């Protein structure tokens, strides 16, 4: 705090942030009031009834339970794979010497600029020819492959401050490169690995484009929501429930792990600031 904080800055911030969450309040209120009351606007207070009717009916109207399970599987597997493979590669790139190391590293960490639109046509053709459309691997492979561009950068940045003495000590104790990784580097790299996991989980849970194109029978939540969001149905209550369910898990994780997210997101797109 600088001297005594001028009160108006806090007031302005409070007003702006309240305006900011109006859309969120809107769908929450719509989801817990009967449709008849909100048809002239969810903010109207002529008559206020609390009901969980939409929350009960939505499961039979839309395939949300199935979609939730699909989303959890896709995001879970992709997150685990990224968390498992990234630290090993980051360690190899940072501590080991091999031909082509720097070139490979430069190619991988610069791939973060690529838009996901680049993958959709080639992989669509590839999955179609291999008969892999509608297979979970068709989205998990690009989820994990695309993540390395930022995940390896993030973990390698962390390793730059890793004490060299520990590595030397392990060498003297007779540890080979893989044993050094397993016993010395990995246990001390858990915080960036965790940050990588959170970013990857949020990204894969929210992904719409790839699963919409490559999956048919079991689709994740954003795809289900996208199918019903733009329709001309007037079931605003049911759709609001579906929207809340879609974003509940990532929003909670996002708010709890803001700190890791902040550290991670800077590495995914910016430099070390």
């Amino acid at each position, binding site marked *: *705090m*600088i*001297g005594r904080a001028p009160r108006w*800055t806090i007031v302005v*911030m409070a007003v702006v942030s309240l305006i900011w*969450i109006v*859309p*969120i309040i*809107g769908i929450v209120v*719509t989801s817990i009031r009967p449709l008849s009351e*909100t048809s*002239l*606007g969810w*903010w109207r207070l002529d008559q206020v009834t609390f009901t969980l009717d939409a929350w009960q009916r939505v499961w039979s109207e839309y395939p949300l339970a199935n979609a939730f399970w699909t989303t959890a599987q896709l995001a879970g597997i992709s997150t685990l794979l990224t968390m498992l*493979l*990234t630290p*090993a*590669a980051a360690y*190899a790139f940072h501590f*080991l010497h*091999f031909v082509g*190391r*720097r070139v*490979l590293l430069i190619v991988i*960490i610069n791939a973060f600029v690529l838009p996901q*639109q*680049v993958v*959709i*046509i*080639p*992989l*669509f*053709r590839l999955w179609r020819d291999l008969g892999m459309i509608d297979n979970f691997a068709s989205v998990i*492979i*690009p989820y994990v*492959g695309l993540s*390395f*561009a930022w995940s390896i950068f993030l973990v390698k940045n962390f390793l730059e401050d890793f004490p060299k003495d520990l590595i030397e000590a392990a*060498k003297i104790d007779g540890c080979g490169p*893989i044993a050094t990784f397993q016993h010395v580097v990995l246990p001390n790299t858990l915080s960036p690995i965790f940050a990588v996991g959170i970013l990857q989980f949020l990204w894969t849970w*929210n992904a*719409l*484009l790839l699963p919409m*194109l490559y999956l048919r029978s079991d689709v994740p939540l954003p795809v289900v*929501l996208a199918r019903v*969001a*733009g329709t001309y149905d007037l079931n*605003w209550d049911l*759709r609001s429930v579906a*929207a809340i369910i*879609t*974003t509940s898990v*990532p929003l909670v994780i*996002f*708010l709890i792990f*803001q700190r890791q997210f*902040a550290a991670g997101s800077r590495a995914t*797109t*910016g430099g070390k*600031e």
Partner: protein
Amino acid sequence: MALAAPRWRLRDAPAAWLLIIPVLALFSVAVVYPLIETIRLSFFDIKGLSAPKYVGFGNYLTLFADPTFRNTISTTLIFTLGTTAISVSIGWTLAMLCAFAPRRTLPFRMMVFSAFGISETVSGYMWISMLRPDQAGLLNNLIGIFSPGFSYAWLGDADTALWALVVAASWSAVGLPLLLCFASVQAISKSVLEAAYMDGAKPLSIMRFIMMPLSLPGVRVAIFINLLNALRAFDIIFILTGGGPVRATETVGYFMYRESMTQFKLGYGAAATVILLIAVLIVSIPAIIQRTAGAK
């Protein structure tokens, strides 16, 4: 130690390859192959399942003669620059306001930041409900206070639909500039701010003459990230307008999806993707130079 070193070096390379092979394999399938293949396919005419026909730069010539694609370019510019300008300037301003009382504004920062944590698909849906064409749309209702009975189909008009997209995308995108700029403002030495305060500087002049210039590094990163994200945007456009009305709000990133995945013109879509790729690379030049130089 001196004796052990060569043995260690010898075993380095095989171990390294063992550790990075899975990464290289997945990276090749998900990034290298699609990148090369997209560029290659952009020189072919591919319709559905029929055999590709080489057309040289034909797809690119058709693109720039296509009025839909030309409209796409201006839409992309307005959407990308508009979203970045609005989100970064709001995020930056809020970050400076918050810096006067970091602790007491924490809950308010969380509220603005939470919009950033909401799935784009969901925020698209929220804005659909905010912009409903009837009286239950909040925007129509607010205008209705001044002119009773007002109702307007915001998403049904090409111009207002594009601005609706900009507003919806900015709403989500303010979180990151707020976070980055706030960190930059917080990093300013307390003694500088205290000195200004002692000299009787008003909050507005502290913001203007100390916080603004000294938080520029954070602002630069925020501008880059938001430009990149807006260029690559897809979800919010798909949900909110579906590129409509009548393809008026398609950006390049949406146009390629529309041509390749709904019209099955894969080669044509690939050419549009290459244009998007070039735009992304131009925006990213400084970041790529920085990363490449830092890769040791």
